[in-house]
């Protein structure tokens, strides 16, 4: 009997050794040849395990694609030395203390001073570690909660519009394409950011002549069945439905639930969910009258870099899918600042970035702002594309919209 146990133990150890060895072997095989060029390592906080992983890994791959494009074009040159970009990913385990641990690892253990921040609401956990060690961290998204991006984060920069900027872009879209919509009912994910976002976004909509009816309807982060939410939405008398923030796993089922109740109103969201995903989940009969900010291939006004990114990713996956490009923005803008300031020192980069007025992004020219909204002028506002499903369920491009978050 104990021999079998011994054999099982040996077998188990062999199994673990094999499993540990395989990734090492593949990692070794993928080493880039280093010639005269050195590697510039950027720390990247990503959730590789846990409930946030499916989304985060996608964004990581988008960012990786951008790094490949930059490296193909010769990488980054600082002080005469050529650098190839490398993203050093660290697992955040889909939790705030995972972010803290990962940030500790990157900043303290591996000594990386340039961190591409976590996306969504995990940003506030990276700030204390980065600030204490004067590491530059570039966020991909902001929900305006305390500690994410404010006066306590001088080394933090926001590369993407964030929740507020995206809402502004959709508002502009409504004003231009749907002037008949005068009132909206809002719903959003209940993760604690609503009290910080609701006043600002409501004010912006109302300043532009669109009334927000009632208070925002929150849905739980692990909400699976959206029919009660759809029922609440249906009970509100407004011209359109606005899902302010959520992941694809919330937006598509919510849309489906709303349509299944017979609600035909225009449904728009300032989060990202590709029209294709809506059609897949809701079915072709129910997919109409929808808009989201999402770039599509070949749309007029697409900057060439964005077009290249979309093409590569679509070829890789074989289908259109939702693309965020939030951390892609972060890396691209950081590279700009590095090349303009010709330095890799975080403090020098921070001082240089603060003084900029405009900066290039894959979405077009972005402007620095954020003093009023966040308390610190470290937020980049850039144009946003809008992707639309019209009444017949056909996908078409809604246009580019300028946004400025003051």
């Amino acid at each position, binding site marked *: 009997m104990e021999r079998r146990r011994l054999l099982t*133990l040996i077998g188990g150890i062999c199994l673990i050794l094999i499993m540990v060895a395989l990734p090492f072997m593949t990692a070794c095989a993928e080493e880039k040849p280093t010639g005269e060029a050195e590697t510039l390592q950027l720390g990247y906080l990503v959730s590789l*395990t846990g409930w946030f992983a499916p989304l985060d890994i996608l964004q990581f791959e988008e960012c990786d694609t951008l790094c490949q494009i930059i490296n193909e074009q010769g990488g980054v040159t600082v002080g005469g030395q050529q650098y190839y970009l490398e993203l050093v990913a660290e697992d955040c385990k889909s939790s705030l203390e995972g972010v803290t641990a990962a940030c500790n690892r990157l900043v303290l253990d591996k000594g990386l001073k340039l961190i591409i921040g976590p996306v969504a609401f995990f940003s506030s956990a990276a700030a204390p570690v980065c600030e204490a060690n004067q590491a530059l961290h570039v966020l991909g998204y902001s929900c305006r909660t305390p500690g994410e991006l404010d006066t306590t984060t001088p080394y933090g920069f926001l590369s993407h519009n964030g929740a507020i900027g995206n809402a502004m872009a959709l508002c502009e879209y409504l004003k231009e394409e749907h002037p008949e919509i005068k009132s909206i009912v809002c719903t959003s994910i209940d*993760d604690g950011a609503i009290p910080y976002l609701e006043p600002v976004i409501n004010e912006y909509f109302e300043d532009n002549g669109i009334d927000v009816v009632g208070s925002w309807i929150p849905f739980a982060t692990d909400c699976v069945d959206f029919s009660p939410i759809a029922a609440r939405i249906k009970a509100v008398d407004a011209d359109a439905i606005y899902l302010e923030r959520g992941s694809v796993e919330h937006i598509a089922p919510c849309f489906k639930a709303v349509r299944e109740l017979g609600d035909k109103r225009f449904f728009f969201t300032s989060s990202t969910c590709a029209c294709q995903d809506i059609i897949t989940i809701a079915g072709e009969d129910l997919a109409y009258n929808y808009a989201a900010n999402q770039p599509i291939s070949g749309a007029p006004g697409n900057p060439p870099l964005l077009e290249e990114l979309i093409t590569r990713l679509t070829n890789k996956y074989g289908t259109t899918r939702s693309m965020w490009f939030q951390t892609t923005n972060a890396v691209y803008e950081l590279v700009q600042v590095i090349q303009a300031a010709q330095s890799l020192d975080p403090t020098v980069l921070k001082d240089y970035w603060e003084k900029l007025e405009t900066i290039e992004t894959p979405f077009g020219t972005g402007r620095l702002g954020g003093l009023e909204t966040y308390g610190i002028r470290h937020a980049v506002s850039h144009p946003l594309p809008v992707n639309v499903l019209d009444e017949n369920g056909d996908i078409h491009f809604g246009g580019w919209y300028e946004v400025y978050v003051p």
Partner: protein
Amino acid sequence: MIEKQISRRGRKLAKPAVYGGIVIILTLLPLFIKSSYWLHVLILTLIYIIVTASFRLIAISGQFSLAHAAFMGIGAYTSAVLSRWFGWSVWLTIPLGALAAMVIGALIGYPFARLRAVYYALVSLFFGIGVLQIINALGIWTGSYQGLTGIPPLFGASKIPYYYFFLGLTSLCLLVMYRLEFCRIGTTLKAIAQSYLVAGSVGVNEVRYRILVLAIGCFFAGLAGAGYAQYNLVLSNLSFNFMATLWIVMYAIIGGLNSFAGPIIGAAVLIIIPEFARDLKMYTPYVAAALLLIVVYVIPQGLAGLPEVIRSWYIRRKAKKVSHAS
């Protein structure tokens, strides 16, 4: 005969020597470990050792409290909210956090005392979930999923003071729990776990002892949680959900529920070993799962039982040799 005497003396000295050695190594560790990240891992291990040991303390009395991480959360959030929103001193809020967890533990201990075994486990599971939802519903005060940020820290930026603080705290808590387990109270609890009927017939007030141990266990869990809050500086209720409790339970079971050193070994092994596999990135959960399966299949009584397994295997080998020889 002489061999037996020597070996007995050797065995007597062995245990204190081992413990003394461990204490010395742990105290001198920061001098050798320059990496702040590994200090962070060790600090987390120390915190979870307190939580796991307190879970085991409650489990001794036969109560499988599946709300343990939620009590850690109660301690953490109490301390964090008091120090962040009301500006109270951190040294005051940490004990207050522990007290809050203890009080709530005692309060629910009474109605839950009527349940046993599986039912107790299930009701505590749902209590844990419910507590988290209530914390979630408190909005800005607790930060919900976004997290509560801006919590005032215990010490400055360096991790070394934290390490010594938690080392001292863990040693103190373990000492108290050790004394509890091996004094009259501990024996009474074990009696209750074995057979509540017999214990009751000898005059043991089962309910009172169960509430007592639950309150004590929750005190330590709340203490660890409060310390964690003031160390991590960012709190989210995701750290205290059902999955977190499951992990604590696993640390205890893998370590071995039957020995005092079990939770310590279990927590240390299950936290530190996957950290070595961190470079595997997406494949780390497989390493942890493999570790769990190996221990469960090969050493069912837990890692603390490893010396036993090795000894019995060795003795059987010797016996086989003898029987082959004869």
